[in-house]
């Protein structure tokens, strides 16, 4: 049985090999179809994994509150000389800690871009004023020394922890621990070095999930105790310039992050938080970001993305399949006589179906395999040149290969069925269309053989008689 299957496939291969160019071009449709399915899915998967990683980095059990500047018309209402006060306050932090039992960790953060000096070098980095338990929200890896401690907090110590970017800029060759850096005219002792958060979360994202400061030429971060920051920088910032002369802003905190113990508690807690904030803030000067919601949204987006890309690719596979059916129909009609011969020699309809179906399936399987190879290469190229992450899943491979085999069966069935149902007498009598200087006939010498002898053939045709099957006319009567 197995040897018979192999025999059938070998014979199919031979028939296909006779029309190498045609078979090759037909296969190409499937090759590109399968390759596009695989690479589209890989690109979609890569994009979604990246987004999910970034969101997961924010923490799926976290709720992030962020200070935003209230809408413009209120700014205009306020006198331009006075100081505008907005944003999250220390009081909010306390309120959350006291009124929301599920708030496991409450981390207030204040961010401010500043220039940092060490000897002759300087860098503009973000000063992150925060609390020691900041590390419970963000997985901060301490490379050297230590992170902030409750003691630093309590005594408003003038110490700081720098990240790798700052380290590389300021301390090319020196050991940073114990050195003093200058920020806004005051000195801070470096007690630790931590890994870049941005390095952990992958490329700098464009989803505005990170703090806005990072986009305007600020690189690196310096962590200092929040208490120190409050004491040394104050909360008011005066800006000079513009047509109005002077304007001021007072912002206590840039961010408060609340961590709840489980994902189920995220959404209820969010509702409580929203209520609480609404009651104590006259203006809408805050924003609530829920990574879990973003995560779910990203999953939805991913599904949609995959469906869109997948259907585009599926259409191209369909087109490839139709191309195959087209060619197989042409092949069947071209080989009508062969079908007649085989039927006369005892082939059942099923034998004919198997023969043509195996040719189609072979075409699509070869196309599918080549498509898988190509489909595995394209995402690599996209990653290398397009700087986009791609993930090839085994599922995508199996799916597209299965689809291509399915297409071979589906689109091969009709031509094979047609071949099987030809009347053996008619097909034995079948002649090829009369050739009249069409290029096809020069290729296909047999065409001449099947011409009836009624009109004089050109001498050129007579010369070919030796490789013809029937040089002197055709049996019209059998």
């Amino acid at each position, binding site marked *: 049985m197995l040897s018979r299957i192999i025999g059938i496939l070998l014979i199919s291969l031979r028939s296909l090999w006779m029309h190498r160019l045609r078979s090759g071009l037909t296969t190409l449709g499937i090759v590109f179809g399968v390759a596009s399915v695989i690479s589209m899915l890989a690109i979609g998967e890569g994009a979604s994994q990246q987004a999910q990683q970034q969101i997961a980095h924010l923490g799926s059990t976290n709720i992030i509150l962020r200070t935003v500047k209230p809408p413009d018309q209120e700014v205009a209402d306020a006198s331009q000389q006075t100081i505008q006060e907005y944003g999250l306050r220390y009081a909010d932090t306390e309120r959350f800690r006291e009124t929301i039992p599920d708030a496991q960790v409450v981390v207030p953060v204040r961010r401010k871009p500043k220039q940092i000096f060490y000897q002759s070098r300087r860098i503009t980095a973000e000063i992150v004023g925060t609390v020691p338990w900041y590390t419970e929200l963000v997985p901060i890896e301490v490379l050297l020394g230590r992170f902030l401690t409750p003691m630093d907090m309590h005594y408003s110590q003038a110490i700081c922890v720098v990240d790798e970017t700052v380290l590389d800029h300021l301390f090319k060759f020196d050991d940073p621990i114990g050195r003093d850096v200058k920020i806004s005219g005051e000195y801070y002792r470096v007690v630790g070095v931590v890994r870049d958060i941005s390095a952990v979360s992958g490329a700098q994202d464009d989803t505005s999930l990170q703090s806005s400061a990072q986009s305007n030429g600020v690189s690196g971060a310096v962590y200092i105790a929040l208490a120190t920051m409050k004491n040394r920088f104050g909360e008011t910032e005066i800006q000079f310039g513009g047509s109005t002369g002077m304007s001021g802003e007072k912002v206590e905190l840039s961010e408060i992050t609340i961590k709840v113990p489980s994902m189920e508690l995220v959404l209820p807690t969010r509702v409580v938080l929203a209520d609480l904030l609404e009651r104590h803030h006259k203006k809408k000067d805050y924003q609530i970001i829920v990574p879990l919601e973003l995560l779910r949204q990203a999953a939805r987006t991913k599904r949609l993305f995959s469906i869109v890309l997948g259907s585009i690719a599926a259409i191209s596979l369909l087109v490839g399949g139709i191309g195959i059916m087209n060619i197989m129909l042409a092949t069947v009609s071209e080989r009508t006589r062969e079908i007649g*011969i085989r039927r006369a020699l005892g082939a*059942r309809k099923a034998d004919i179906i198997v023969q043509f179906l195996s040719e189609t399936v072979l075409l699509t399987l070869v196309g599918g395999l080549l498509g898988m190879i190509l489909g595995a290469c394209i995402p690599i190229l996209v990653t290398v040149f397009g700087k986009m992450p791609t993930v090839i899943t085994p599922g995508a491979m199996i799916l597209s290969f299965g689809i291509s085999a399915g297409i071979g069966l589906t689109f091969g069935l009709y031509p094979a069925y047609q071949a099987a149902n030809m009347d053996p007498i008619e097909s034995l009598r079948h002649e090829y269309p009369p050739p009249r200087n069409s290029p096809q006939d020069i290729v296909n010498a047999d065409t001449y053989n099947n011409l009836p002898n009624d009109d004089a053939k050109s001498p050129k045709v007579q010369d070919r008689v030796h490789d013809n099957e029937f040089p002197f006319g055709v049996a019209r*009567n059998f």
Partner: protein
Amino acid sequence: MTSPDAKDSDRQGKTVVTIEDLYKSYMLGRMELPVLRGLNLSFYGGEYVSIMGPSGSGKSTLLNILGCLDKPTGGRYLLGAEDISTLDDNQLSAIRGKRIGFIFQSFNLIRQLNIIENIEVAMYYQHVPKHQRRRRAIMLAERVGLADRIKHRPFELSGGQQQRVAIARALANDPLIILADEPTGNLDSQSGAEILEILNELNAQGKTIIVVTHDEQIASQTHRSIHLLDGQIDRIQSNGTGE
């Protein structure tokens, strides 16, 4: 040549084909066009018969029915013990493969297969195991004098050689009857004579051969010539060489 197939000797003189009141018509639109109008014929094992007649006399229709490619509209056709008119398509295919050897005017070899594979095709559809198939195909190729050409493709052979391949293929499943349709029609006289020589030898070894021809000379070599006219038997001429 090697000895004839053993079974042929058992068939000698026995009826292998019986046609009773065979009727065949085609529908042309609503008009019924009768082609064969009540034929009664018998062929015997080891007989060499020619069927003759002008165009339109129904020769090719008769041959199609004899070859189980077509079914009669009325009457009976018994091949060996089987009534062909009651069989379905698959059974007809099996009968064609096992009981009938075709020799066509235009040889009808399959282009993409070489000589040995062309001979094997008929056995392939009867599920003869590969090694057995190959052995018999080589034996048959030797029998028609093409042992040195078995790896060639049809278009690399002359017409006469191609027709010899076709004869070898017709013998592959040791059929009850061999149907030859103008077997020399596409050949020059030299090759034609060679083919007739082979057919004569086969008949001498006991094969039942039915040949359709226009050629009086071919017909004269057969035992009986059946002349058709307008779908009926015009006359049956005994050529006195056999029986």
